[in-house]
């Protein structure tokens, strides 16, 4: 058994990582490995010669003409992983650790609520300033509301749908040339 540092060992204890060499239940990689090995038994010349002797690893049912189970090994594995019942156990803490966990949890919820509130207020601010600008155009511009009427005309903006060029998920490092000034609205087929 490999010796771990005390910090790692306590972490392993907390997360229930099995430390012994023989794991309690077969690990994913071991199951995959074994099943795949069983699937592709391509004997080399030496093993082929050995197998032509009286000893065989073929199962008795598989040897029969009617055949045993011919299920694809991959399907067997998919069923294993789909149905295996182990889910992580619920968190079990002592009083102090539970309190710590609860504090962090509440702080995170509070932080998220604040973020949502901030987002909502920002949208409200934008909406109200749009409203004020339009009202100012309508009454205070002094041109009988002509500018207002022009600004309310929705011709030529994407009220129907956005062009696909608009839909670009934001990145941390946008391209050096971020805006294509020569872009024209493509003709609809």
């Amino acid at each position, binding site marked *: 058994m490999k010796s771990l540092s005390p910090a790692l060992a306590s972490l392993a204890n907390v997360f229930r990582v099995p430390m012994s060499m023989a794991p309690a239940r077969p690990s994913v990689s071991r199951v995959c490995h074994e099943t795949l090995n069983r699937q592709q038994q391509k004997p080399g010349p030496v093993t082929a010669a050995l197998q032509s002797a009286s000893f065989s690893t073929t199962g008795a049912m598989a040897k029969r003409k009617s055949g045993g189970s011919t299920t694809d090994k991959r399907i067997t594995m998919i069923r294993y992983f789909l149905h295996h019942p182990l889910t992580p156990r619920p968190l079990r803490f002592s009083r102090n650790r539970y309190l710590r966990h609860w504090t962090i949890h509440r702080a995170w919820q509070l932080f998220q609520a604040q973020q949502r509130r901030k987002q909502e207020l920002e949208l409200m601010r934008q909406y109200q300033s749009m409203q004020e600008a339009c*009202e100012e155009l309508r009454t205070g511009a002094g041109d009988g509301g002509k500018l207002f009427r022009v600004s309310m005309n929705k011709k030529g903006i994407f009220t129907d749908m956005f062009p696909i060029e608009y839909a670009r998920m934001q990145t941390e490092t946008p391209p050096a040339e971020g805006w294509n000034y020569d872009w024209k609205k493509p003709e609809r087929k």
Partner: protein
Amino acid sequence: MAAREPSRFLSRALPRASVPSIRPQGFLSRRNVSDEAPSRRLSDHLSELESASSLSTPVPDSAAQSFDPVARAKARKTQLPRGRYQFRSPKYDRGPLHPHQPPPASDPSSRLFVPGPFSAPRAEQTYDATVAADIMSLCYVHTPPGFTPPPKAPRLREWDDSSPYHKNRVLRGPRGGDVLRLLRKPIKFNNIPEIERITIHSYVNKAATENSSWLHVAGIAVQAISNVRVETFKSKTSVANWGIVPGRDSVAVKAELYGENMYHFLGKLVDVVLPRIKDWEGVKGTSGDSSGNITFGMEPENVALFPEIEVNYDMYPPKMIPGCHITLHTSARTDKDARLLLSAMGIPFYGKIVN
């Protein structure tokens, strides 16, 4: 007093962290251009840390002498439960009058508690940062203060009293069909359309005609691409060609995605999968249930393009990878608004647009 001394593990671990390593960029051996991005730069994060340890702060003598946990515990009128005590949420609902009630689902001890979200998906950040505000300003219609729109005709029509039998009859449905469409309210800052959930549904007819392995492979493929446990469904209708009897055969799997899972899935769909589909024009313009939910289908070879399936492609029987229907449920009340939102998120539409 042991509590006042720094732990021996801590003292051993602290200098290790401050040893200058060969790679100053942290634990990754690969360097990317994006590592230089302001939010990823390690030095900024390190400068936020306090250099002084709070453990070395001297405790005043008065505090140390008044610290007597045993006396404090004894002075309590009712004793606390023991330190290892766990509140266990009841397994079964025994009604509102039972003394053992489950905590709210947001409580970590609840059986319904789901921790997270643990990441900020890119699609969600894009929506919050640009798409929401853009949709709001595109759909803005100015109404002067004090303006009230004229009342519309009632959606359910009265019967003309031409017959005495019309008395006390239920009202007539709208013209042209009995479906009452959803009411569309003007889009303001508090009802900007957003994506509420995504449903991935896959109907596997071979699960009934052949064997259950088709359903299992479909289930694990959908689970892999969605990160959500799937539900299976039995057929409701009988299909004579496939020999499907209602209520007998499990033929469909469905996964419902919310929140973080949903935005990650949408991001993968828009950035990775859809651009690689050959000769795909987009979602049909006639798709939609006229109340803001848009559905499109994916062929099996396109489902195999999802990165989770692609990296592990050999572990799926290639013929059994399922196709699926993906429904994007939005909070928009009409298909037009839903398409506006989805096109802003990067889903192309083609053909005749029907609203």
